[in-house]
């Protein structure tokens, strides 16, 4: 497999003595022949800091400031990134301060949050950032003390030389360090020597969050700022006419702005907007497909049967395998649309000032925000600044820039600073959704119960490729066909935490259970049999590391006491996504005749764990998320408008609905991979398989509680 963590271009170190005597260190990743050190003023650093990728400063007092470039939405990157830098620097964590960097595409590479990709992308460069700074500080101390650098040690921000008994903090050597050259390849620490990485460092924003400080986009205020709310058209419709009189009549409403297919109400306060938006009388007319969920069901059935499919992968002779099969297992699985529903509704601040634009708010893709604004205004991208606030959740919703677009249009129209605010109804009805998808699986078994053929056909709504053709069980079956059909819907769809795999994993892992049952094999043994085949004699390309997958399967079976208790009905699931491996087991016990979901055991291989608290959070959070949406949540359309408009009908999982979750992490020695997504995909399958084990009911559609098969089952959820 290709490693994505390698720093392929040579680092170029810049050190600047500042007017205050501080040390700025940045790392240029592009195109320099040899590392060299330049002494610059602060202004020069800022002006010349081209293509910097990581950035830290050390004050004469020994305080360390580490800038965290990637948007923080709960994945804990604002704590874990600086931990890596501080580790190699051997800083005193108590003296580290973390700041959210603004968008700077010249300093930072991949300044976005998505795909669980930040840590694998930045691991090596963050380490180098810390290690190079430590190298020059040590060299500076050696020079000042006139001792060999190799005799110097660093611990918690203190540089010491045992022989001479000398010691001092980082700040004392900042000025001297500015004249030191850095090595071409700085030596990184041995992982066994890590002191900060692997420890439960607390969230750097904790105090501010727990005392109500303004951290989030919605909290941002500026003198003279206007607020705006927008009524968007139903999907597939356009505005025919607008009667804004009643809305204008609401006390506090300053203006109504029509742009594109949207109507905005503007005020200097929020409450008048919530009232006025409801009073807008807008009539619409069709402008394309006006879709309802009942149409989608028809479309799915038709396209599964007769759709024009794109062949994603073909191994062996599938037709022959199925014609020779002793047994064929077929099943179809379907999921609904889902909204992202971050707790902080979408919002963004924009201030258009002539040919310049200032943007502030919660975005997963600050550069997309900038490009969007520049495009609308017809100005160069460098005229747009983007400040990233903390994000009150994202789940993929804030990869988009529709809310930025709105803020820019309205700020321009009003010639004033404007913050656009969505309410929950906007978020659920005017959003962008996890697309509905339907899968048909077919498996051919021979006499001995070996899977000799496997077919998967996915139909997605704007889902592009609705399969992951090189994932398991590809590589483990001689004859295999993976196809994808795409339907172009007028409903806006978007990446949603663990795109595609958030449902595909459930469908596949549930189907493999069906096949194991037909083959008369234990679900874990059946998966291991396939994985052993992929290991010893792989068929075609493998998108996953077989040993790591076997590792989590075996560990999850062991940790969950798989198959050991006759009274505990268990469901198994394993999935590889976003470079991490997660296996889960759900335990259901009968209590007073009621199946009761008691526990989910998860074993994760994400390589090295940076912060056990954060890692636990992501795994548990992913499981709770996967479980909640698999069991409870549905979004259905009626003539281009979602029927579920708020949390009273759009049901999210609550405190009393989560079982005990036991997490384990395998120390496999690999570099760290991301965890924002990988724990979610396996959960639905583990629960569905446990429900089958307990009740004999196979759930092939989500949400579970709305399925006929489930109507007479009361599933309790209780923690120990």
């Amino acid at each position, binding site marked *: 497999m290709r490693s994505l963590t390698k720093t392929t271009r040579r680092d170029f170190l810049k050190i600047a003595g500042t007017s205050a005597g501080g040390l700025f260190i940045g790392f240029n990743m592009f195109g320099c022949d040899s590392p060299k050190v330049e002494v610059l003023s602060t202004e020069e650093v800022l002006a010349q800091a081209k293509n910097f990728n990581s950035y830290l400063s050390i004050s004469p007092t020994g305080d360390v400031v580490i800038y965290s470039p990637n948007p923080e*939405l*709960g*994945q*804990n990157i604002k704590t874990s990134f600086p931990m890596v830098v501080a580790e190699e620097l051997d800083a005193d964590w108590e003296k580290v301060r973390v700041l959210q960097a603004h968008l700077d595409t010249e300093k930072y590479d991949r300044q976005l949050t998505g795909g669980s990709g930040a840590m694998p992308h930045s691991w090596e460069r963050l380490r180098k950032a810390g290690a190079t700074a430590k190298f020059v500080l040590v060299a500076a101390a050696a020079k000042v003390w006139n001792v060999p650098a190799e005799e110097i040690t660093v611990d918690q921000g203190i540089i010491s030389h045992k022989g001479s008994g000398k010691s001092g903090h980082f700040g004392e050597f900042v000025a001297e360090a500015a004249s030191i050259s850095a090595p071409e390849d700085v030596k990184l620490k041995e992982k066994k020597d890590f002191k900060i990485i692997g420890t439960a460092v*607390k*969230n750097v*924003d*904790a*105090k501010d*969050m*727990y*005392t*109500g*400080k*303004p*951290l*989030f986009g*919605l909290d941002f*205020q500026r003198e003279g700022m206007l607020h705006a709310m927008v009524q968007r058209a139903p999907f597939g419709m356009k505005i025919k006419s607008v009667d804004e009189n009643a809305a204008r009549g609401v*006390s*506090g409403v300053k203006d109504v702005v029509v742009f594109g297919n949207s109507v905005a109400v503007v005020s200097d*306060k*929020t*409450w*008048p907007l*919530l*009232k006025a938006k409801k009073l807008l009388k807008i009539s619409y007319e069709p402008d394309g497909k006006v879709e309802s969920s009942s149409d989608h069901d028809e479309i799915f059935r038709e396209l599964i049967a007769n759709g024009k499919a794109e062949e994603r992968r073909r191994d062996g002779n599938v037709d022959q395998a199925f014609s020779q099969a002793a047994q064929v297992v077929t099943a179809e699985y379907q999921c609904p649309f889902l909204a992202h*529903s*971050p*707790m*902080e*509704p979408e919002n963004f601040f924009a201030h258009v000032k002539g040919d310049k634009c200032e943007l502030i708010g919660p975005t997963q893709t600050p550069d997309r925000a900038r490009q969007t604004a520049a495009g609308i205004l017809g100005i160069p991208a460098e005229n747009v600044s983007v400040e990233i606030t*903390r*994000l*009150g*959740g*994202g*789940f993929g919703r804030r990869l988009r820039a529709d809310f930025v677009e709105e803020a820019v249009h309205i700020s321009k129209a009003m010639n004033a600073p404007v913050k656009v605010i969505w*309410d*929950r109804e906007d978020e659920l009805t005017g959003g962008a959704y996890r697309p509905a998808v339907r899968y048909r699986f077919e498996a051919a078994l021979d006499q001995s119960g070996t899977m000799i053929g496997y077919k998967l056909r996915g139909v997605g709504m704007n889902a592009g490729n609705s399969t992951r053709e090189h994932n398991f069980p590809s590589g483990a079956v001689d004859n295999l066909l993976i196809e994808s059909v795409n339907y172009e819907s007028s409903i806006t769809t978007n990446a949603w935490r663990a795109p595609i795999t958030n449902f595909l994993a459930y469908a596949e892992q549930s189907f493999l259970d069906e096949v194991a049952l037909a083959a008369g094999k234990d679900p874990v043994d059946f998966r291991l049999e396939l994985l052993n085949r992929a290991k010893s004699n792989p068929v075609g390309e493998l998108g996953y590391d077989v040993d790591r997958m076997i590792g989590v399967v075996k560990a999850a079976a062991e940790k969950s006491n798989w198959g050991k208790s006759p009274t505990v009905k268990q469901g198994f699931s394993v999935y590889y996504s976003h470079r991490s491996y997660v296996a889960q087991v759900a335990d259901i016990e009968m209590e007073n005749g009621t199946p009761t979901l008691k526990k989910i055991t998860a074993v994760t291989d994400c390589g090295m764990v940076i912060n056990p*608290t954060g890692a636990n*959070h*992501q795994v*548990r*959070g992913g*499981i*709770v*998320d996967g479980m*909640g949406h698999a069991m409870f949540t549905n979004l259905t359309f009626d003539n281009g408008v979602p029927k579920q408009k*708020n*949390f*009273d009908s759009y049901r*999210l*999982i*609550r*405190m*009393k609905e*989560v079982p005990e*979750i036991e997490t384990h992490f395998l120390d496999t020695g690999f570099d760290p991979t991301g965890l924002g997504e990988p724990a979610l995909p396996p959960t639905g399958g583990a629960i569905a398989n446990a429900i089958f084990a307990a009740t004999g009911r196979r759930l092939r559609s989500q949400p579970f509680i709305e399925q006929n098969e489930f109507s007479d089952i009361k599933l309790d959820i209780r*923690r120990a």
Partner: protein
Amino acid sequence: MATYNLKVNGKSHQVEVEDDTPLLWVLRDHIGLVGTKFSCGIAQCGACTVHINGNATFSCVTPISSVGNSEVITIEGLSENGDHPVQKAWEEVDVAQCGYCQAGQIMQAAAFLNNNPSPSMEEIDNAMNRNLCRCGTYHKIREAVALAAKNN
């Protein structure tokens, strides 16, 4: 428009607003206390939880005209230095992921523990079931409420 005199976090505030303005928006837009969060607006998620005379209340559906002389406490006023037992427990347990719902969770927990200082885990679950957390920090919330009860 009417004039209202409010007592928030021990201080008096005078605001000119419509009678139907929810307390949430008076706090956020008029008084500048943005720690209390907006999320659903219909008393379903608890992000806007404040204390009114010590009771956990959803400020998004509490019209200003109903508040009167009541004592309103927001997350900013729960303690002077952020050291209320619930806040300390939240830090100790390191509860938050995105953090957006946590002010509401803390206010819910603080009012609950005030009325029930030694709750069972089931009572904690029942009380905290009113507040949504989209990141799924429920296990940590539960642990932190129990810790706050134990430490106090």
